């Protein structure tokens, strides 16, 4: 007949061990999403997408059309949603609608830990350049330490599209693994007596916060951030826009839609679209291993930065006013996992130690801190690269 096997079954003929590895990676992501419930909204679409794009000749990536090779549906989504930054920014509206800033109004001093715990981003940035990555790639890897998936995707979509797959996988996986990553580091950095410090004296956890103040806060933050670093406005502005929808009180339907339907729909599209970068040729490389390792280091240094900042403040605090240094670790954006972890650790040492409220305040500060850090990276890296 003259028809070769490779023509009849091109996918089977083109299948390599790298494709097999990537399908296994997809399977692991799906397993983690379903069995362990690690960030299922994102890891499940990414896992399935990884399988979808690692079958040779997948029409999800490219189609042989009348005018030659044309982009497949995932490529179209990538060009329309990621290259234009639309998907991550829509997610920011949804996240903004989910954030309640009132804990910050009760303990505004705790914002300081939202800054200190961004240290991991920059420690990793330096490490990545030492490993040979250029500044833009290193910044994209470092931003995993923001513990904020959309910020990682946003920055890497601008600076290192080629590394977006492993960066997203690392960012979302480590966010889900916060309860496993943070406790041993916190324990190593604190003494038992420090972990027993109570924070009842700190702030007023029952204070009522004015509705007007909560409405004006996102507008104020947007204006301040915009005036200082206009390049960060897309990132911070969309987050604060989502929050304004939540707090204004007249758009409850929109607020709920942003928190639920918008978040779910865009997350599905984001996950499966990012998976289009997880092809065997791009993903089965030594870079992926390095990025996964550097991402873990970023989370370790985040925790280190927050805890050590609290310990430093305690040096200047009088007895009875000291801060439990564990809450410094909540200055990352992984909300509310990080606050829960610290509260649980506090209760293990002392059943009457309730750290949840101050920990939540720090965690909310971390959400602002991570977006500010992302904005600063967007502003500064092009000046130095």
């Amino acid at each position: 007949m003259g028809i070769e096997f490779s023509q009849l079954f091109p996918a089977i003929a083109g299948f390599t061990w790298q494709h097999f590895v990537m399908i296994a990676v997809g399977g692991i992501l799906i397993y983690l999403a379903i069995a362990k419930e690690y960030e299922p909204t994102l890891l499940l679409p990414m896992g399935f997408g990884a399988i979808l794009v690692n079958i040779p000749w997948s029409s999800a990536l490219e189609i042989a059309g009348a005018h030659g090779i044309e982009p497949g549906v995932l490529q179209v989504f990538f060009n329309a949603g990621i290259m234009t930054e639309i998907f991550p920014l829509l997610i920011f509206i949804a996240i903004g609608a989910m954030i309640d800033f009132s804990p910050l109004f009760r303990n505004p001093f705790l914002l300081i830990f939202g800054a200190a715990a961004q240290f991991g981003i920059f420690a990793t940035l330096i490490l990545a350049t030492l490993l040979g990555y250029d500044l833009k790639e290193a910044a994209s890897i470092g931003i995993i330490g923001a513990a904020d998936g959309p910020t990682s995707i946003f920055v890497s979509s601008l600076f290192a599209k080629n590394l977006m797959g492993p960066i997203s996988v690392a960012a979302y996986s480590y966010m889900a693994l916060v309860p496993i990553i943070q406790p041993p580091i916190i324990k190593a950095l604190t003494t038992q007596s420090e972990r027993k410090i109570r924070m009842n004296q700190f702030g007023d956890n029952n204070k009522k916060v004015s509705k007007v103040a909560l409405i004006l806060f996102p507008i104020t933050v947007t204006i301040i951030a915009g005036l200082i670093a206009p390049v960060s406005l897309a990132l911070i502005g969309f987050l604060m826009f989502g929050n304004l929808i939540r707090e204004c009180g007249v758009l409850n339907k929109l607020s709920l839609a942003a928190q639920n339907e918008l978040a779910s729909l865009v997350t599905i599209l984001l996950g499966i679209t990012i998976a289009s970068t997880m092809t065997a040729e791009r993903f089965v490389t030594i870079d992926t291993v390095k990025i996964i390792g550097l991402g873990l280091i970023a989370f370790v240094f985040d925790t280190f930065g927050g805890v050590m900042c609290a310990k430093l403040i305690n040096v200047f605090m009088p007895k009875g006013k000291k801060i439990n240094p564990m809450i410094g670790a909540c200055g990352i954006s992984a909300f509310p996992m990080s606050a829960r972890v610290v509260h649980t650790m506090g209760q293990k040492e002392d059943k009457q130690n309730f750290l949840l409220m101050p920990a939540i305040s720090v965690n909310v500060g971390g959400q602002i801190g991570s977006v500010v850090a992302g904005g600063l990276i967007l502003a500064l890296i092009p000046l130095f690269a």
Partner: protein
Amino acid sequence: MEDTNHMNDTIQAVVTEAEAQVTVQQTSIEVQPKKKSQSENVTASIEVTGISMVAIFLFMFVFFLAIKALDRYFPGK
């Protein structure tokens, strides 16, 4: 004679245009940013780290002041 002059003018114009294109190409090659060495990247990353960490603390301080001001002028009831 007029035809020859016209041809010379045309040739001159084509040559000038070609030279201009070469100049543009050379200029665009010169504009290409030089790839930084690893040590330059490391130095730049340390500078970015220093500036960013200071800037994040400053941002947070400004947000702290904003919260204090909002809380003062619009106290919760």
